[in-house]
């Protein structure tokens, strides 16, 4: 069911993008006469960001609804098909066990997972906003630079949140005698540093551009 919803969403987005690009081609005058390779890449990234945004949002919604259902009806096997931490993780069985034996562990655990998924969709949302704001004729603006830096802060937050998820995961899984399923994602910190660096180089570029503009 979960996979089906994701596939339908992806199909809708792809159809929308194709129809939109077809409409653009039919127009009398296109704003940009020749589409460069970079512009095409940015468009593709935009589509991927939309897919990730909708996908993670749907996933967090499904986990939330499943969580609410299991709170009132523990025997419902709603988590069976959801890969919470990636491919191959099927928490259907051990979620039920945690729910049955340790309710509070279960509540905190699932809420932290929902937050983890939501913050990832927020990251995709930031990328969509960034791509929507970017002006391909004058792409270097302080607003874009600030948005890139904001993305790096969100990545740091995701890294910090992974500790919280890791803690609740350990707390919940060890309570039923299972190995922890979640690993703290150190790569987020690395990517955050990289994005922060790019953002600041971008900012310096904008400053130089402004200086050049103010040279009479």
């Amino acid at each position, binding site marked *: 069911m979960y996979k089906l919803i994701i596939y339908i969403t992806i199909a809708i987005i792809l159809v929308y993008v194709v129809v939109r690009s077809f409409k653009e081609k039919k127009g009398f005058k296109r704003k940009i006469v020749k589409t460069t390779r970079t512009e095409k890449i940015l468009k593709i990234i935009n589509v991927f960001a939309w897919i990730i945004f909708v996908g993670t949002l749907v996933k967090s919604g499904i986990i939330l609804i499943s969580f609410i259902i299991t709170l009132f009806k523990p025997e419902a096997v709603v988590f069976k098909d959801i890969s919470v931490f990636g491919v191959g993780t099927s928490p259907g069985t051990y979620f039920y066990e945690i729910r049955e034996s340790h309710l509070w562990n279960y509540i905190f655990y699932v809420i932290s997972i929902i937050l983890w998924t939501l913050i990832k969709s927020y990251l995709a949302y930031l990328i969509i906003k960034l791509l929507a704001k970017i002006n391909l004729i004058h792409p270097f603006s302080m607003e874009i630079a600030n948005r890139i830096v904001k993305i790096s802060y969100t990545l740091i937050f995701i890294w910090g949140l992974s500790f919280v998820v890791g803690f609740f995961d350990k707390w919940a899984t060890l309570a039923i005698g299972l190995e922890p399923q979640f690993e703290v994602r150190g790569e987020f910190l690395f990517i955050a540093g990289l994005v922060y660096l790019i953002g600041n180089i971008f900012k310096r570029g904008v400053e130089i551009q402004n*200086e050049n503009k*103010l040279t*009479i």
Partner: protein
Amino acid sequence: MAIIVNLDVMMAKRKMSLNELSQKVDITIANLSILKTGKAKAIRFSTLESICKVLDCQPGELLEFID
């Protein structure tokens, strides 16, 4: 800013409007305005030369250093 542009003073002395100066120096009014209001970060020698030529003054009369 430590360097002050006295363009408005020189223009007043020569009784020249911004529009007239802009036409004679061949610089847009917007750029002259940036220069006049002290927002400019730098000035090219060629620009300074043409302004000095039109206003019949020395660069030192246009630019002033205040500590």
